[in-house]
C-alpha cells in the first residue's frame, strides 16, 4: 500500500495537503514573492506540457511519452534550490525541473521526437543553467555514478558547484546507485541525491524495492544524511534540497533527499495502471494535488487569485501548443545522415563507408525503400 507523508515520524512538510502552512517556516526561506510565483508558473507549465505530450502521443505525433501529473512539486521545488552554476541530472519525467532551469519547451519536446539532445554551449563555464546537464539516459539509475563523476571532475577542477541527480524508487534498486553513493561518500563529492519516491515502478509497488521504513535510512550507510520530505509540497522540497546544496558546496558532503509522492498517472503512454492498482488509491492522492495546495497557499499570501491562475494556465497552454508545433516541424527536417553522424567524436573510416552504402540505396529508393 502506498504511504502518505503523515505516516512517517519525520517527513518534512511546510504546506499541508489542504494548503495550510507553517508561516515561520515560509518566512525562514530565502524566497521572495517572485520566486514563489516562478515556481508556480513552472509547475503549471509542466502540467500543461505533460497533458499536451499525452495528447500528441494519442494523436500519433509523438512516439512515446512519460506521464507526470501530480509530480510537479518535487520536480520544481528541487530545481529551484539550485544556483545557476549547479548541475542537474533528471530522470525522464521531470519536465518541471527543466522548465524551471530555463530550458525551452520546444527543446524538451525535441528529445522525445528525435531521441537526442543538443547544446548551444560547448564550454561548461559558459553554459546557462538548463545546459548544465548530461543528456538523458534511459537505463534507470545509471546516471547516478555518472553525475558523481561529473561533480568529482568539477571539484578537481577547482569549481565550487553542486550537482543534483534524480532517480526513482525503482531505479534506487540498481547497483549503479549503490556504487555512486559509495563513491560520493568516500570521495566527498558535492552532490545531492534526489530520490523521487513515487511509490510505483510501472506496476511494481515500492514495497518490492524497499524493506526498510524509508530510503533515507540508507543514507547513513554511505556516510551522509538523508532527509525525507513531502514530495507534493514544493517548499518542503525546496528547503531540503537547498540545505543539501549548501552542504555540498560548503562541506563537500552529499545528501540523500527522498521526496515522497505518488505517481497518479500511468507510467508512460504505453502503460495501463488499471491492470495492477485500485483507482481509489489514486483518488486519495488527487486530493493532495501539489498545484492545488500551492494555489491555496499562494492565495493566502495574497499572491494568487482564481482569475490570475486561469490566466497563467491559459498562457501555459498556449506556449505549449506553439512549442509543440515548432518542435514537430523541426523534427520533420531530420535527415538519414544524422544517424551516422556523432557515433564517434573522431570517426573511423567505416562510418563513412557504411554511409555511402546506405546513401547509394537511399538515392535509388528514397524513403519508400525503408520500413516494413
Amino acid at each position: 500500500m502506498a504511504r502518505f507523508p503523515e505516516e512517517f515520524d519525520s517527513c518534512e512538510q511546510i504546506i499541508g495537503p489542504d494548503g495550510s502552512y507553517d508561516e515561520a517556516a515560509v518566512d525562514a526561506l530565502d524566497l521572495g514573492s517572485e520566486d514563489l510565483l516562478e515556481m508556480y508558473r513552472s509547475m503549471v507549465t509542466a502540467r500543461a506540457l505533460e497533458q499536451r505530450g499525452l495528447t500528441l502521443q494519442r494523436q500519433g505525433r509523438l512516439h512515446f511519452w512519460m506521464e507526470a501529473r501530480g509530480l510537479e512539486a518535487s520536480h520544481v521545488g528541487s530545481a529551484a534550490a539550485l544556483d545557476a552554476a549547479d548541475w542537474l541530472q533528471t530522470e525522464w519525467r521531470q519536465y518541471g525541473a527543466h522548465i524551471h532551469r530555463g530550458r525551452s519547451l520546444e527543446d524538451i519536446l525535441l528529445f522525445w521526437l528525435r531521441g537526442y539532445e543538443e547544446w548551444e554551449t560547448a564550454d561548461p563555464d559558459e553554459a546557462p543553467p538548463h545546459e548544465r546537464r548530461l543528456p538523458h539516459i534511459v537505463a534507470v539509475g545509471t546516471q547516478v555514478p555518472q553525475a558523481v563523476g561529473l561533480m568529482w571532475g568539477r571539484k578537481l577542477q577547482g569549481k565550487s558547484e553542486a550537482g543534483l541527480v534524480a532517480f526513482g524508487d525503482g531505479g534506487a534498486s540498481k547497483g549503479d546507485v549503490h556504487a555512486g553513493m559509495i563513491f560520493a561518500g568516500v570521495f566527498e563529492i558535492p552532490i545531492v541525491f534526489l530520490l523521487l519516491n513515487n511509490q510505483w515502478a510501472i506496476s511494481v509497488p515500492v514495497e518490492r524495492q524497499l524493506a526498510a521504513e524509508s530510503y533515507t535510512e540508507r543514507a547513513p550507510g554511505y556516510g551522509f544524511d538523508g532527509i525525507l520530505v513531502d514530495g507534493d509540497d514544493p517548499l518542503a522540497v525546496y528547503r531540503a534540497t537547498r540545505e543539501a546544496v549548501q552542504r555540498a558546496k560548503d562541506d563537500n558532503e552529499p545528501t540523500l533527499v527522498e521526496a515522497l509522492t505518488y505517481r497518479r498517472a500511468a507510467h508512460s503512454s504505453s502503460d495501463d495502471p488499471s491492470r495492477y492498482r485500485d483507482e481509489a488509491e489514486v483518488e486519495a492522492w488527487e486530493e493532495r494535488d501539489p498545484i492545488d495546495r500551492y494555489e491555496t497557499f499562494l492565495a493566502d499570501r495574497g499572491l494568487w487569485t482564481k482569475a490570475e491562475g486561469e490566466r497563467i494556465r491559459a498562457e501555459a497552454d498556449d506556449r505549449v501548443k506553439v512549442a509543440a508545433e515548432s518542435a514537430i516541424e523541426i523534427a520533420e527536417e531530420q535527415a538519414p545522415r544524422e544517424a551516422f553522424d556523432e557515433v564517434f567524436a573522431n570517426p573511423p573510416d567505416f562510418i563513412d563507408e557504411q554511409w555511402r552504402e546506405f546513401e547509394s540505396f537511399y538515392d535509388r529508393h528514397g524513403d519508400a525503400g525503408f520500413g516494413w
Partner: protein
Amino acid sequence: MAEDMTLVKAVRTGLREEMARDESVLVLGEDVGRSGGVFRATEGLYEEFGDDRVIDTPLTETGIAGVSVGLAAAGLRPVAEIQFMGFVYSALEQLFTRAARINARSRGRYNCQLVLRLPFGGGIRAPDMHGESMEAMFVHHPGFKVVAPSRPDDAKGLLTSAIRDPDPVVFLEPKRLYRSVKGSVPEGDHTVPFGVARTLREGADVSVFTWGAMTKPTMVAADDLAPEIDAEVIDLRSLTPLDRESIIESFEKTGRAAVVHEAPRTGGLAGELTAIVQESSLLYQEAPVKRITGYDITYPLYDLEDYQLPSPARIAEGIEEAVAF
C-alpha cells in the same frame, strides 16, 4: 633513442609520460595506487602524481566505469583499469548504454574520452574470470575503439594514442605477455595510429591474422612450418577499426587465410575476418578460411586451460589445413 623494456613497463611508461604531459589525465581502478596494480602496471605513479590523479577506487566496476564517464564529461581524461577483463561484466551497462553513445545522444556536446585498460586472455593459471577474451563484445557494440598491442613499442604507442583519442577506447593488454616479451620502445612522444595492422612476418603461402598474446604461439608455428610453408603473420593490433586494406592486400597475395584467437569461436572475430575476405576477394580465395580459436565452452581452468588456448601445434596444423586444401 629507445629503451628495451617489458610490455607491462611500456604500459607504465606510456601512462607516466601522458600524465606528465597532460594534467587532466588521471588513473583510477582497484589497487592501482599504493600497490601499483596487481600486475604493477601503475607502479610508481601514485608516488609521482599523488592520490588526486592515481586513485584507488572502491571495489565496484560499475562505479569505476560510471564515474569515469562523468569525469570525462567534466573534461578530465580518465584511464580506468578493470583488474581483469572478466570483471568488466558489471560495468557493461555503464559502458554500453552511456560511454559508447553519449557522443551521439548529445550530438557531440559530450564525447567520452575514456581509456578502459583491460588485461585479457588466459594462460596464467588464475581462477575463474581471470582468463577472458571477450573482445568481440566491444567490437560488436558501436561507439568503442578497441586495440590490443602485443609488443612493448605498440603498447606504449597505442596507449598514448588511446589517451589522446576523443572516443572511448578499450585497451586490451595481453597479460600473459606482460613480462614474457621484451622489446625496444621509442623514448618520448610515440603514438601508433588506430586501424593499422603490423606485419610480423612476411610470407607468400597463407595469411595468418591474430592479435594479443596469440601472436606468440602463432609466430612459433609459422617458424616451425618454414620453409615448407611460408606463412605471413599479421598482428591486427586494432580491432575497431580493423585495417581492412592490409587484411585484403595480404589475402589477395596468398589466397589462403587462417585466423587465430583464443576467444570462443562462435560469434568471434574470426567469422568477421572471414566475411571481410570473402566479400572483397572471393575470386582470390583458394581454400576455406581456417578458424583456429578457443572452443565454445565455459573457460576451463588451471591445468585444463591449455586445451582451450590455441598452441603452436594446433596453430601449425590449422595453417597446414588452409594450405593443403
